[in-house]
Every structure is written in C-alpha cells, then in structure tokens.
C-alpha cells in the first residue's frame, strides 16, 4: 500500500477516535471505537502485527501501573481520604477564602502528584465544591484550582499523569531522578497558577464577614493515608532496586483492598471497576492507531519539526509545540506523537511533558474542538462562554510554560540529567 494511502487511512482512524471523544455519544465509550480501529489498521497491514504486538507489549506495563494507581485512589476514597482532606482544608481555612485557596492548592497538588490527575478531577473536585459551599464561600476559584492543578501539578512524578507514565521510559531516568528534575518546574508552575488565581478571582476571594463555623470532626483515615505514603516511598525504592514500581502500587492497593474485603465493604467486581478497564484497553487501542499515523509520515514530520538540542530555546520550542499539539488533538495522542519523533535527550522529553501537561489548561475540555463542540451543544442548558475559559487559560498557560521550562533548565544545569 502506498505511504500516502496508509497515512490517510491511519489519520482517518485517529480522527474518528478523537471525534468520538469530542462528540461523546452516550453509551459509546472511546474504547469501543479505538480497539476495532486499531485492529483494522493491523488487518490492513498499515501496522504490522509484530509492531502492534511490540507497542502493546511496551504500553502494557505502563497501563497496568495506571490501573493500580486508579484502584489505589478509589480505595483511598472509599476509606474516606478525600472526605477527610475536605474537612482538613475547611478546618484550617477558618472561614477565609484566601486561606481556603492556599489549602486547596496544597492538597490538590499533592493528590495530583501522588494519585494522578484522575483522582483530582473525579474524586477531589466534588469534595472541594462541597467544602466551599458548606463554608458558605464562593466555590468558583477553588473548583477552577482543582481543574487547573489536575493538569499543571501533574509534572512531579511519572505516575501523576498518563502522559508522563508513557514518556517515562524514553527519558531513561530513574523514578527519583525524574522527580528531582521535575520538582522545580512543578513548584514554579504551581506558583504561577497561584499568582494568576489570586489576581483573576480577586472579587470572589474577598474576605468573608461571616464568623467561621466550627467544622466538626470527621474520622481520620490514618490507615489509608499511611498506605498511600508508603506506596509512594515504594515507587522510589522499587525503581532504585530495578524492580518495576507497578508492584509498589499493586501492593498498596492490595493492602487496602484486603482490609475492605475482610469487612465486606468491597466486592471483586467493584475493585475491577475501579481500575477503569475500559480506559486501559482504550490506551492500548489508541497506541496502535497512533503507531499507524506515526509510521507513515507524521513521525518523520515531527522529527523535522522538533529541535534536537538541549539549549534553552530548543527546550522552550519543544514545550510550545507539545502544548499546541495537546490543544489540537488532546494530550494523550499528542504525547504518543511527540515521543514517536524520538526526542534525543531526556531534557527534551521533560520539556515536552511540561507542554502536554500544562498546555491543556488553555482549552480545558482536552482540545479546542471539544470546548467548541460542547459550547455548540449547550447540553447543560447554561454552558459558560468559551471566553471565560480561554481568558484564565491565556493568563496562566503561556507564563507557566516559560517559567516551567526555565525551572527545568535550572534543575538540569544544577543536578544534570
């Protein structure tokens, strides 16, 4: 089959996968489309069976790791960790919106780094809304903080974002070294977000004149918090010892699961659902589809487009290209496309991760197409104007990209890759 035809079919398959994600038809999860299309590309020999098997073999452990993290987060939620986090921020905020924002930044950044962005969006955001509402404070800045930090605070560890987990192997870095190099960009980006939020939401953050209610006491899920912290330590230890860190996550999730099985609070079915199997299968299908797109032209194009130097301007350019791509096609395929270009140096892979992880805050809904489509549909009756989202995105994303890459450059110059 000629390259152009193969590339066109592969691109069409990717467009259909992304189109389903944008249109989001009810009862048609992305996996139901991505997996058959991946199979079709193999059947047409646009992706050879060997390459597809290699790709699935490469993605398999990553996806398994993700499943274990998702299970750990859901089990921690069932143990009351997020509810307790909400009570903690309510108590410490003492009725004041600015204190609440600072605490939400602290906890949302920690949750995202330790339990992945899924945990922040799905599990922590509703808790933050309920917390602000129960304190009779305006929830807007705090809910937006969660949605922003789910992306921008996912820089720290390979487990914080699937994009980082996918790219971790190509960096050639250890778990600890990855964290050490991304610590400074992580802090710098969070600081930029905080400054922007204080400015953008200044009216909503005005001091409250009502006396702070005494937020009652909630149960302290000490056991689950200890397990989560030990799992994090486990990632570093197993990684340093050359053992795949998926075992640390599996052990952490396993310990809580056994405890909940024993008290009959958990069924095997619920445990399986918490790993989000449909999502895991989707990632494998998407991997094969993107492989088809990359192998027949796009990979070479990206390799030409992306710089091959570790100088600061090259890192900035890489981050910007990655961020633009993430807004055009969603950051998961963007990561797979950028990685296929074979970035020559860990510095460039980390810069690209800053781009794909911070970039989505521009369009919120994963891509500009999704944002516009949801606006057209107005399914929720009163969908907010696109401009509201873009303004905050424009205020934070360009500054966070530049500051994040600068911080990465400083880190690399200090401790080296």
């Amino acid at each position, binding site marked *: 089959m000629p390259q152009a035809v193969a590339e066109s079919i592969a691109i069409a398959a990717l467009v259909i996968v992304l189109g389903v994600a944008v249109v989001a038809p009810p009862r048609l999860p992305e996996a139901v489309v991505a997996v058959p299309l991946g199979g079709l590309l193999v059947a047409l020999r646009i992706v050879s069976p060997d390459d597809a098997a290699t790709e699935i073999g490469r993605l398999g452990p990553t996806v398994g790791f993700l499943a274990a993290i998702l299970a750990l987060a859901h089990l921690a939620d069932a143990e009351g960790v997020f509810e307790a986090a909400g009570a903690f921020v309510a108590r410490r905020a003492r009725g004041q919106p600015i204190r609440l924002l600072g605490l939400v930044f602290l906890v949302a950044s920690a949750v995202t780094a330790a339990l992945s962005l899924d945990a922040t969006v799905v599990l922590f955001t509703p808790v933050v*809304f309920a917390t602000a509402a129960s304190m009779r404070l*305006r929830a*807007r800045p705090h809910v937006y903080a969660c949605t922003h930090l789910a992306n921008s605070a996912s820089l720290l560890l390979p487990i914080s974002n699937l994009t980082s987990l996918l790219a971790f192997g190509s960096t050639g870095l250890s778990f600890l070294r990855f964290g050490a190099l991304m610590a400074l960009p992580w802090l710098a980006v969070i600081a930029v977000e905080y400054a922007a939020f204080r400015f953008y939401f200044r*009216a909503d953050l005005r001091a409250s004149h009502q006396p702070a209610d005494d937020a009652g006491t909630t149960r302290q899920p000490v056991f689950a918090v200890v397990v989560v912290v030990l799992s994090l330590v486990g990632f570093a230890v197993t990684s340093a010892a050359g053992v795949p860190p998926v075992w640390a996550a599996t052990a952490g999730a396993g310990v809580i699961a056994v405890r909940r099985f024993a008290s009959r609070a958990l069924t095997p079915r619920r445990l399986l659902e918490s790993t989000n199997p*449909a999502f895991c299968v989707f990632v494998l299908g998407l991997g094969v589809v993107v492989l088809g797109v990359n192998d027949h032209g796009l990979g070479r194009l990206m390799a030409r487009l992306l710089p091959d130097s570790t100088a600061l301007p090259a890192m900035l350019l890489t981050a910007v290209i990655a961020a633009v791509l993430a807004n055009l096609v969603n950051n998961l395929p963007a990561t797979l496309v950028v990685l296929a270009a074979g970035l020559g140096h860990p510095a460039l892979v980390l810069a690209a991760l800053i781009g794909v992880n911070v970039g989505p805050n521009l369009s919120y809904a994963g891509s500009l197409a999704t944002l516009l489509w949801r606006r057209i549909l107005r399914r929720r009756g009163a969908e*907010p104007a696109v401009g509201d989202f873009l303004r905050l995105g424009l205020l934070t994303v360009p500054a966070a990209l530049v500051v994040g890459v600068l911080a990465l450059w400083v880190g690399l110059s200090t401790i080296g890759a």
Partner: protein
Amino acid sequence: MRVVVWIAEQTWEACIDAVATWAADDATVVLVHVTPSDVQGAAHHAFAGMLGRRGTDADPGDTVAHSAAASATGLLDAAEARLGRAAERDIRIGRVEREVVDAADGADLLVVARDGDDARLGPKSLGPHPRFVVDHAPCPVLLVWPGAAPAVGSIPPPPDRPPGKHHGPGHHDPHDREHGHHGRRRPPEPPAPQG
C-alpha cells in the same frame, strides 16, 4: 412592595440587614441565589478532557451540580433565618450577573452588596458581577457595603496638576480639607529646568 435580595456567598449578611433596615415590614422579600454555571462547567470540561474515561467514572460536574442545589437551599435557609420572616426564593444556575438582573425584573427594589476592595471608597469596590448588575438593573438599587463603609478620606487625592500651572491664591481645593487650614501645603514647584 417587592424587594429582590441578591444572596451571594461572603456578602449576603449585609443585604439581609439592609432589608431589615430599609424595606417596609409588609414588603414581599425575594431571596435570589445564582450558582455560576461555569463551576459545574469547569468540572464537566475537566472530565471531558480526560480522554477515554467516559464509561466507568462518574462525571464530577454532575456531582457538583447535585450538591450545588443542596447548598443553595442551605444558604437561603440561613438568610431567611437571619431575616426573621418568611421570604420567597428564587434559586438559579447560570451567568450570575444576567440571572440577577433577570430576577430583578418587575421588582420595586434590588438589594446588592459590593464585593470588591473594601478598604477604600471607589469603583474597585464593585467586582465584575455587581458592576454589571448595578449598570443594568431594571429597578432602583440599594447598594450596601458588606462590612463598615470606609471613611471618606480613603478616596485618593486628585492627580497632581501638570507643573507650571499654578492656581490662584483664592482657590480652595475641597480634597485638601483633611489637612485643615494650618496643614502643610505643597510648596509651589520650581519651573522645570530648560535644555
């Protein structure tokens, strides 16, 4: 008399107290609360942006919308308790500033609290939403400070006049009042050096 009161988190107590002070005892009081739609929108969008998760996890935007309804009711319960008499309720979701203007249609009075800088008198004491509501209100507006109003002296002095344009001896600047007659006056500025 129909008095519409905009109940917003962090400022609502002042509005309730203003109703007690200024509205007639037999006035119909309507408490309006608007949950900004972009709050649940942000949660919906964040979830939609996570490719491939639809199907298993619950959309956090739905959870937020559900608890928004409950918390609005709770806030209006507290407002009605502070008011000390029965009031009508108007709970909405949407663009806050436009919903409030819409709710004030046909009212005899709209009670609004400032929500910006409360350290000094001036335009920054109105955030974007009260600003829009005050500018577009279809009825008389009672605009209240959420706490004690700042002193009149908090208004910044007028900008300096361009150099070289001295005013005559009989001129009295009303903004210099707080310095009194014996206060130190700014000495006339020397002419700018030429060349």
